[in-house]
């Protein structure tokens, strides 16, 4: 009987502890507004703009952002859709930004005559942007040559 009471008490205690955890996040300001037990509602999907103005750089050596939608762009061993406009051969025809010669350098520092395999997968660094506000307020400003 004594054991039973103890067990019941511990169960009740742990239950109340869980409830209080769910409601109170101990004064911490978290991005997560819900308790751990509940699922956040899914954020609204954002679409990529089809064609946009060029996006300025935020820091030196930043890979420029892609100002257009890249839906269905195939970049694999068969073909590189990005290079069909941005390659040295094609950029003039389409009035596109040409890739930098830095992309021709392989990991040993040797400059090749065309895009180096390690720089072939464009979207590892160059990504399109949706119009989304930052989740956390910040006052980052580009410095040096990129500052206003």
């Amino acid at each position, binding site marked *: 009987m004594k054991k039973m009471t103890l067990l019941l008490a511990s169960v009740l205690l742990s239950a109340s502890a869980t409830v209080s955890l769910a409601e109170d996040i101990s004064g911490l300001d978290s991005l997560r507004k819900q308790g751990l037990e509940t699922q956040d509602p899914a954020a609204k999907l954002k679409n990529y703009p089809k*064609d946009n103005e060029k996006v300025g750089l935020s820091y030196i050596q930043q890979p420029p952002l892609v100002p257009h939608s890249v*839906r*269905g762009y195939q970049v694999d*061993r*068969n*073909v*590189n859709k990005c*290079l069909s406009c941005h390659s040295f051969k*094609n950029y003039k025809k389409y*009035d596109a930004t040409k890739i930098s010669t830095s992309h021709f350098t392989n990991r040993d520092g040797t400059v090749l005559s065309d895009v180096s395999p390690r720089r072939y997968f464009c979207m590892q660094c160059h990504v399109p942007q949706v119009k989304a506000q930052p989740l956390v307020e910040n006052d980052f400003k580009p410095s040096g040559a990129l500052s206003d």
Partner: protein
Amino acid sequence: MNLIKKLWRALRRPSVHYSLGFLTVGGFIAGIIFWGGFNTALEYTNTEQFCTSCHEMRNNVFEELKPTIHYTNRSGVRASCPDCHVPHNWTDKIARKMQASKEVWGKLFGTIDTREKFQAHRRELAENEWRRLKANDSLECRNCHNFDSMDFTLQASRAAKQHSTALATGEKTCIDCHKGIAHELPDMTGVKGWH
């Protein structure tokens, strides 16, 4: 030889047992049934369901079509296999269907029955379609996309530039630029316009 002669004689002789009315009406009804049956079968082979009943199509090209704009889009207009691969015009359609007997052969002998075999044939298969669409001035594209109805001001600047010049003069046709819009591209080495 004797049989053919007999048949020929039977065909030439007027009917003994059946009236002209019966033969005329009977022939008419049989004609409707045969023609209707033929067209129904033709229509059935022109459905997405039929095209994807083979694993070669279902697991390769159909899977590749799904994420593209022609299958998944905001307006709910969907182009399925025959919309692009079978001419709508009757005579052209029959011609294409006769060509498709080659595809039945391919199915029977397993020309592309594995992913590897399909990948190996991808360039050849793509070239067949590029050639066909080039020859008919991208007719299947134009069944929906009407050049005269294009508003260049609503297009992206680069698209407007290409459409108002190369496409307008007939120098280029849709497929010259819009390759690989519904399926993955093969190795594009040596294809004009690609790096």
